[in-house]
């Protein structure tokens, strides 16, 4: 739902600017239902045009053949989203091109506007909304919408009423809204096609290139597609009444990518593990929980390494690794060295025996503590590599992450984060139980009080 109000007098000229008669109700059939344009207020002092949407959720869900509950019951019909953008385009095509048969002068003039969106979802909150519109010269007013006023502990969520004030040409206002409304929201768009890129470039002409958030706008506008396995996984997690942790994770990625420190920390951990493996002369390496394959990328090219097995429980990760390594273009020699296996550190796999080294880089904290004994048996009792490198976050160091609230873990899927004492105790117990010796090392810059951000146990046998 969108309202555009002007107080430029005579305000009723808004009808000429929008090319839509204020004394009629304008209805348009849209792919998703119906868009209705009405003028609830028309006077010389003040004129408001409002776009109301009547989204056919049943029809949409049927067409998409969605297999998730959220395809059927979601807030999409009620929050201003790409639906509003397409309604803007449909209703105001002429105005968006800057033409006006009756009032061309006015169309070329900057006049005052108030834009009201009764409900928007803003990922990134008020701050993001401000960063999006203020650089373009809008006043931004956000009023949060509580998730449920009867359950105050549910907090607010990303929903708000948005009020924008500006003085601009109508053409600019409409193009800004067209591009930025879907960007505010950044949820699953219904219509993302190849021509979206072209549309974005056209509507963003003259202002997008200079916008400080242009990259984020582009990425959010061009929403990504989910793979089939992801959908299946999401279905299973949803049944438990839980939010798919990966989906939540995806949403955080942006924030984390900004955090250069976190990125470099992960590199440090990988480098530390790789260094140990190379220094100990390991030739055959098991990368248990290989994720996106960054350790593989570090090690595979070394002549010393003759065989690597990357194991991950997420099939999707293995697909990503192939993309990351540009599998199709990889030299035969490297391809022969690498095997990617769908596996889990809680299930024994006879194929893991006889390796020189195994790496568990940021893996253990993704298992419930109760499941660790299985991991111990699978790795230390059954596979028995000569060298095992285990890294995990040092919980004490969390105090030094300013953006991390207290009692919060670094990642949504972390089941625990250990202090240095806890990790040491675990390492020593495992070493004793399975006949290894262990040395524990900090990874990353060491703080006097809190230690290093990560910790590494190097087990040898």
């Amino acid at each position, binding site marked *: 739902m969108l309202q555009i109000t002007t107080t430029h007098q005579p305000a009723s000229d808004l009808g000429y600017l929008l090319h839509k008669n204020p004394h009629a109700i304008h209805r348009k059939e849209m792919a998703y239902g119906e868009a209705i344009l009405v003028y609830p207020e028309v006077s010389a002092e003040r004129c408001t045009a409002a776009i109301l949407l009547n989204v056919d959720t049943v029809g949409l869900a*049927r067409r998409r053949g969605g297999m998730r509950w959220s395809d059927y*019951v979601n807030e999409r019909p009620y929050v201003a989203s790409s639906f509003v953008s397409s309604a803007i385009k449909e209703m105001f095509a002429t105005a968006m091109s800057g033409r006006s048969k009756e009032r061309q002068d006015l169309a070329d003039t900057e006049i005052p506007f108030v834009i009201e969106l009764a409900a928007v979802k803003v990922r990134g909150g008020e701050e993001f909304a401000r960063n999006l519109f203020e650089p373009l010269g809008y006043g931004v007013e956000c009023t949060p919408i509580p998730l449920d006023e009867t359950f105050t502990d549910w907090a607010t969520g990303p929903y708000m009423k948005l009020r924008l004030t500006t003085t601009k040409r109508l053409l600019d206002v409409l193009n800004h809204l067209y591009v930025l409304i879907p960007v505010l929201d950044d949820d699953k768009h219904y219509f993302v096609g190849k021509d979206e890129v072209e549309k974005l470039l056209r509507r963003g002409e003259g202002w997008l290139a200079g916008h400080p958030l242009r990259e984020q706008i582009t990425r959010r506008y061009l929403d990504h597609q989910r793979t089939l396995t992801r959908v299946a996984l999401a279905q299973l997690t949803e049944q438990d009444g839980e939010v798919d942790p990966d989906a939540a994770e995806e949403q955080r990625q942006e924030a984390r990518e900004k955090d250069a420190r976190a990125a470099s920390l992960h590199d440090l951990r990988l480098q530390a593990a790789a260094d140990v493996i190379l220094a100990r002369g390991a030739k055959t390496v098991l990368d248990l929980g290989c994720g996106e394959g960054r350790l593989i990328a570090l090690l595979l090219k070394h002549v010393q390494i003759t065989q690597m097995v990357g194991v991950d429980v997420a099939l999707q990760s293995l697909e990503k690794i192939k993309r990351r390594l540009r599998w199709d273009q990889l030299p035969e020699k490297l391809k022969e060295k690498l095997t990617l296996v769908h596996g889990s550190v809680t299930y024994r796999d006879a194929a893991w025996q006889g390796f020189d080294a195994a790496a568990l880089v940021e893996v253990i904290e993704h298992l419930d503590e109760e499941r660790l004994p299985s991991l111990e048996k699978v790795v230390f009792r059954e596979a028995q590599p000569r060298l095992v490198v285990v890294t995990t976050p040092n919980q004490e160091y969390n105090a030094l992450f300013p953006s991390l609230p207290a009692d919060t873990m670094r990642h949504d899927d972390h089941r625990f984060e250990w202090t240095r004492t806890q990790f040491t105790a675990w390492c020593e117990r495992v070493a004793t139980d399975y006949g290894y010796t262990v040395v524990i090392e900090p990874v990353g810059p060491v703080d006097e009080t809190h230690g290093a951000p990560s910790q590494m146990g190097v087990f040898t046998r």
Partner: protein
Amino acid sequence: MIIKIPSMSLALLIGASGSGKSTFARTHFLPTEVVSSDTCRALVSDDENNQAASSDAFELLHTLVGLRLKRGLLTVVDATNVQAAARKNLLQLAAKYHVMPVAIVFDLPEDVAQARNKLRADRDFGPHVIRNQTRDLKSAIRALRKEGFRYHTVLKSEDEVNSATIERSKLWTDKREETGPFDIIGDVHGCLDELRALLAELGYTEAEGVYQAPQGRKAIFVGDLVDRGPDSPGVLRLVKAMVEADQALCVPGNHDVKLVRKLKGGDFPPKHGLAETLEQLSKCDPEEVAGFTKFIDGLISHYVLDDGKLVVAHAGMSEAFQGRPSASVREFALYGETTGEIDEFGLPVRVKWAEEYRGDATVVYGHTPMVEAEWLNKTVCIDTGCVFGGKLTALRYPERELVSVPAARVYSEPIRPLADPQTLTSQQIADDLLDVQDVRGRQHIRTENFGTIVIPEEQAAAAFEVMGRFAADPRWLVYLPPTMSPSETSSLPDFLEHPLDALDYYAGHGITEIVAEEKHMGSRAVVIVGRDEEAIFRRFAISGWLGIVLTRTGRPFFDDRATEQVLLQRFSEALAKSGFWERHEAGWAVFDCELMPWSAKAQGLLRSQYAPVGATSRASLGAQVEILRKLAGRLDTPETQELLASTEHRLDAAQRYTDAYRRYCWPIQSVDDFRLAPFQILAVEGKALHGEPHLWHMQEIARACEHDPILVATKHRAVRTDDPADREALADWWLSHTESGGEGLVIKGPTVLTRGNKHLVQPALKSRGREYLRIIYGPDYLEPENLRRLKKRGLGTKRALAMREYVLGLEALRRFLAGEPLRRVHQCTFGVLALESEPVDPRL
């Protein structure tokens, strides 16, 4: 001429090209039993005479032969096989798979073969080829015996070839036609008194000096009749007489075989009790001793019995060796598999074949003295060290019942002390890890009573990821609940679902008595609860827990274990107060439950999905109503009024939607705020309960619910499908229940497992209330245009899925209660989870 070949063997046809091998093979064997080099050439090159393709053709031939032998199938190789090198490869395959190699030689005059090849246009190789083959054949005939062909036949003329017949002889180990029941008796070692006592205990009676089995039964001795004990000759005498009178079978033990070797003049010191046996035998009639020797010599290494379901061998038998005739199979049967190392007592280190055992057949064996006979992966060792002062044990088969008599005294000191009784069973120790091979890839799960369920690979992969990342310790996963289908879509104008459609489903399957239960709106929970932690440890081998609450996908329900354990403590105590544990003589039980409030588990979904719909729909539609009211002030047309009315209507629907989900949410401050509604007892220690009526389950559960307010008994009523008054009452109850905020009703057959007039019927159907369904289908679903389209829904996939999951769940419980290995239970629960990833309309 009759050519005898063992039914499990590798038969080589040997002869020059054109000597009639292929015709012979076609005449006497199934087409699938014959692997021909010509056919393999054709398969790899489209030309059966393409000699250039021979290398690849033989690679294929060897692969085919290997696979067939691995599966124990008679295999005939139709190739010239005249060269030693060709035969050597095949002999190696026969040895690898422990089958007998057999040769049938076509030693025909060279001119016969030459003449036949001339007649065939496609055989254009010169006469020298046949000549060379014939020459090679002559030396082959001389070499066969030395190469290891114990059975070979040479056919010397066309007449002989034409008149020969094949007779397949059964292997001596093959007693599949003997179906028992059996009494399988462990290592006796000369303990005659104890053997007599045990036989008496088993109901055997002595008549004319021979023990007679009770009606229809038969004894089987696992060997080691002699050595160490007080009367080895007496035991030999008794067993020999029973075997000869067809009252018993006997397999040899290593001690028995060694005795015979000594009696035949073997030059080795008589250790391990052999000296005593020799001493005892010296007092016997030499003729009788000769008889003993002959008896032991004639014993077969092991037996495959009861249609392949039972294997008896002295020291056990791994799956690949069962029923196979070879020297190494015999070695295994006598001594078990050893690593070649010796332990600190100087005894051979044994390979733990039983721990790795995955075969379908039950293996009963002795050889290794244990304190108690114990099952491990469908194998059981019944040597309970009688001669060392333990006891003599028999296993009744198929009852799986153990019968023992104690040793009168210690006859011999064990070299290695008998293992202390363990806190955990061998099975529990072996079950501490699962292997990826049990869950990776496409799965075929054979259920005992309901056929085979196939899990496609991609669904197994999805389940694997979820199991690997989220599941509780697999030892807890003894059951996962099936999905539940709604009743048929209602034909009533304002309803999507109605309980009379569920009733009609059961009536249509010939069922007259059904049960309707209120459907709780929380989260599904499978609850394992113990009388105390010790009882849980004894069965689940997990210490320090009183049980667990699992979600429907096998995750721990609670992140906070302390809360969970307090909840379980209260449940356990309520069960105790109701006399549940005593009544069922059980230490633990598994319940199917609903745990409320919904918001306890679904908080994430509520906040990310349900509440946002309510909040934004009310905000957005509220604003729209306001706009339209303003519009009506300046443009009061019928169209405006109609738009305003429909928008107000939608705003009302948004409010009702919000009210609907709010009913199932309340804050949790302590355990007191939870409500647990158990609605079915899945199992109690020792018995499955799916045969019991639902009304019985309800009653049992209600008794416990009286003792704690956090436990909720489920309102229910019995309904006759053919009684109009019952139908009406059901419809009324459903309506009043759902109008006052209830989710709906679940309609079930009379018992958990119900058969209709043809098949199993759905375990339950749900009929959900009109208001509740707003949460599922959206605030506006009752709009006529929406409802019209929503009614076009198919239930077939959902029902098929529900049925498969249900059958797998029951199979998981059956296997668990039967004490089967964890991997076998896990396979079923894993299967349920995998099936759940199948795309179905989630609103059903």
